[in-house]
């Protein structure tokens, strides 16, 4: 059998290198898109997971802030809870950092920009006196005390104002060393941070791409306006007592803090990012669909070109199964080559896209910068299976058709078989039914609030239009034939060829239709998204001037405008109203949600919020204001 494969298949593919290469490339592009997108988004998530794991240390339970931190006075009560063996408070702040030096006549910050502050750094405020049982500082600094956090540096972290330790990865990338200075933005104001040590522990080098710094908890609270607040208390509880301790803490803690396992934070982010990943993956599958059309067309073309050879082989003793095998194997070989190339290309593209995806995730979901690609064997295996599977499925149709045609008919009619017209009306009818199914699925998924239905509907739409492709091709051919008469015999023959090869031409038309459709839909989607944002901005933001701390997008809840600045703004002549805005994230049923504080009175007078049911914004907000209520999307 291997000889036949070599003779009948591989040799043919090798003798048509251009065609083989094009089809392999088509499959590879589809697979590469899926692999790249999955790898990039998984890497972003894995980076977050790494950070959570590294920062959690030996903790097996923690008390986390639900939104904007919780009162640090709860720490001693948490530590005294029966079953808690050790507790360590943590403050976490994401900040923009640069190397500009404040106080040299140049604050380093320009109005409306954050030029010079180009990188996000996660600053962990830890309490060295509580850290011993967690072994976290020891683990983080590594065994080599010469390069790590020796006793002197440790003391410096405690005793020196604004002292921090940074990772080796971060130090190397920015050319920093112990003794250097780093400038961070705290509520829009530059803060000087002194590097007293470089962390050599391996774990943190990859968490957040190495953009992690450690400081004494008091330093972080002071520098970043978090005085009196904690983001987390990490706990080591007696083995077997976790549920009991968790229940006891839940009963005792205030509403803005709750006990959870450290890994729960990763799950929250996974939930949040999953929709983003699903969208990207679904889009990338369209590219695989295009690849499938290419394989289908390539194998169909191979069948056409070898119609007589197939007849001869059948007459010589090749079974129907053998014919199916040869062409399915052709699809398989093209698919396998495409899948392998696609996986390699996907890894390359993922490396390039990583930064972009990381930025998007960071902007949308606050998952921080990713700098290392996590190669997932599962994603690569999925890419291989996808390329191979889709190619084999695509090849199956032409292969079965080649095998089912009697050898006598094949030898007698050969090329004339291709002139047989596809069942235009039946295919078009099927296309309409499938499009109807798409519409029904859309309606049902909207009614049931089932996002998966959207993807199913998208598949139906692609399939429906593909089924309409033959009728569309015929229609275009008829129009083209009319026009072609004016351009001579060659044009007429060209138009006629379209009709005579309608079955195969329809496949090419469908492939082009899907890829152009993808381009159009993406463009429309992006424009719609912009329009939505525009509508939202017009509705909700009516201010003539906006003021926010520089670096707010990175530090979020750790940034705030000074109260005197707001009061000053209110006093400015010509200012009709000042609306203050404070956003914070909280966890609802395991998912992160945004809580936004605005001034209802200002919105009532000047805002344009629209409400379900058409009720007037003024009356809704007035009611909320008087009843102390909230408004939800």
């Amino acid at each position, binding site marked *: 059998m291997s000889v036949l494969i070599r003779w009948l298949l591989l040799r043919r593919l090798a003798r048509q290198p251009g065609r083989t290469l094009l089809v392999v490339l088509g499959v590879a592009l589809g697979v590469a898109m899926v692999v790249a997108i999955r790898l990039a988004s998984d890497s972003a998530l894995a980076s977050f997971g790494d950070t959570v794991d590294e920062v959690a240390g030996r903790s097996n339970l923690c008390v986390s802030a639900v939104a904007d931190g919780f009162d640090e006075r709860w720490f001693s009560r948490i530590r005294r809870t029966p079953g808690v063996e050790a507790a360590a408070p943590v403050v976490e702040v994401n900040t923009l950092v640069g190397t500009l030096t404040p106080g040299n006549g140049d604050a380093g910050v320009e109005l409306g920009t954050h030029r010079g502050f180009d990188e996000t750094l996660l600053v962990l405020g830890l309490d060295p006196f509580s850290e011993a049982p967690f072994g976290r500082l020891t683990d983080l600094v590594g065994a080599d005390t010469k390069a790590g956090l020796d006793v002197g540096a440790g003391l410096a972290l405690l005793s020196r104002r604004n002292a921090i330790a940074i990772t080796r990865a971060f130090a190397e990338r920015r050319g920093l060393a112990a003794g250097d200075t780093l400038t961070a933005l705290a509520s829009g104001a530059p803060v000087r941070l002194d590097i007293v040590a470089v962390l050599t522990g391996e774990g943190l080098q990859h968490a957040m791409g190495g953009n992690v710094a450690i400081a004494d908890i008091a330093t972080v609270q002071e520098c970043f306006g978090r005085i009196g607040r904690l983001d987390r208390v990490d706990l080591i509880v007696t083995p077997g007592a976790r549920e009991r301790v968790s229940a006891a803490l839940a009963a005792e803690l205030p509403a803005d803090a709750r006990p959870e396992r450290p890994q729960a934070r990763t799950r929250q982010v996974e939930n949040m990012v999953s929709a983003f990943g699903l969208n990207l993956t679904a889009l990338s599958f369209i590219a695989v669909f295009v690849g499938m059309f290419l394989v289908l067309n390539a194998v169909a073309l191979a069948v056409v070109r070898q119609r007589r050879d197939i007849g001869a082989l059948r007459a010589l*003793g090749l079974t129907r199964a053998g014919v199916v095998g040869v062409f399915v194997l052709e699809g398989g070989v093209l698919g396998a080559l495409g899948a392998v190339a696609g996986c390699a290309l996907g890894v390359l593209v993922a490396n390039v896209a990583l930064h972009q995806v990381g930025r998007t995730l960071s902007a949308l979901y606050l998952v921080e910068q990713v700098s290392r690609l996590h190669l997932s064997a599962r994603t690569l295996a999925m890419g291989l299976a996808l390329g191979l599977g889709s190619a084999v499925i695509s090849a199956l149709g032409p292969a079965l058709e080649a095998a089912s045609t009697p050898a006598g008919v094949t030898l007698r009619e050969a090329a004339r078989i291709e002139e047989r017209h596809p069942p235009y009306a039946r295919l078009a009818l099927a296309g309409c039914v499938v499009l109807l199914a798409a519409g029904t699925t859309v309606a049902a998924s909207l009614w049931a609030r089932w996002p998966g239905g959207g993807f199913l509907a998208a598949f139906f739409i692609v399939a429906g239009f593909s089924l309409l492709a033959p009728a569309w091709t015929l229609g275009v051919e008829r129009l083209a034939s009319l026009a072609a008469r004016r351009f001579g015999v060659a044009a007429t023959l060209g138009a006629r060829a379209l009709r005579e090869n309608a079955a195969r031409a329809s496949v090419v038309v469908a492939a082009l239709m899907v890829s152009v459709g993808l381009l159009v839909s993406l463009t429309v989607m992006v424009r719609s998204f912009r329009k939505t944002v525009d509508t939202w901005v017009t509705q909700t933001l009516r201010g003539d001037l906006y003021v926010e701390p520089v670096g707010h997008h990175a530090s979020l809840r750790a940034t705030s405008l000074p109260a005197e600045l707001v009061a000053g703004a209110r006093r400015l002549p010509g200012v009709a109203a000042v609306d203050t805005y404070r956003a914070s994230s909280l966890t609802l049923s395991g998912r992160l949600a945004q809580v936004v504080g605005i001034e209802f009175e200002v919105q009532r007078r000047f805002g344009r919020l629209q409400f379900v049911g058409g009720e007037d914004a003024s009356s809704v907000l007035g009611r909320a204001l008087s009843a102390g209520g909230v408004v939800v999307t």
Partner: protein
Amino acid sequence: MSIPVLRFDGVVKAFPSGTGTVRALDGLTLDVGPGGFTAIVGRSGSGKSTLLNLAAGIDTPTSGEVLVDGQPLSRLSDDALTRLRRDRIGVVYQFFHLLPTLDVRENVALPLLLAGRPERDALAAADVRLAEVELAPRARARPHTLSGGELQRAAVARALVHEPSLVLADEPTGNLDTRSAAQVVELMAALVRRHGATLVLVTHSRDAAAAADRVVTLSDGRVVDDTRARGERAEAAQPFRAPS
């Protein structure tokens, strides 16, 4: 009485044509005994090639029965038919049908490979047949570099490489000049005799038919003449009776 190698029993083969059907074979009854060389002649459209395709089992009759070595083809599955062709039938076509991606030697070895013979054995057997048809020097050549006569000799070698009991040739001289045609027919006749096979040759050429032991003339899908080489009129084929 020996079982005919090939028997047609009231075979009808109709093809759709426009709004109706055309009967390429119209109740054909014919026996071909073992050994020897039978030529089927007739004008274009008389049903010669249809007869051959039915005999090779690559087409099915509309009604009636075709038997090869006493085996009714209608009772064989597609795979069994394929095995029958692979093991007991060799076919030579007017248009040669050599695979363009294989060289001459590989083309000749193909039926043996399809039958599951190892590559080395198949190629060795191909070399022997190529020597018999005097094509050994062109064994490694690709088909498109061969002349018409050479191509048909290669096709003959391929049809005989697995030592079939029945060799079917469909207008093998149709694309050849007179000299090459004569050579090919002479070669085929000699080889099938040497191997004890039965040759059924469909041709419109009286010259090609002249070399046959028996000439059957078709017209409108029926046998209108059946002549032995010695000039005797053959007995009319008897209606088929299933072997007891």
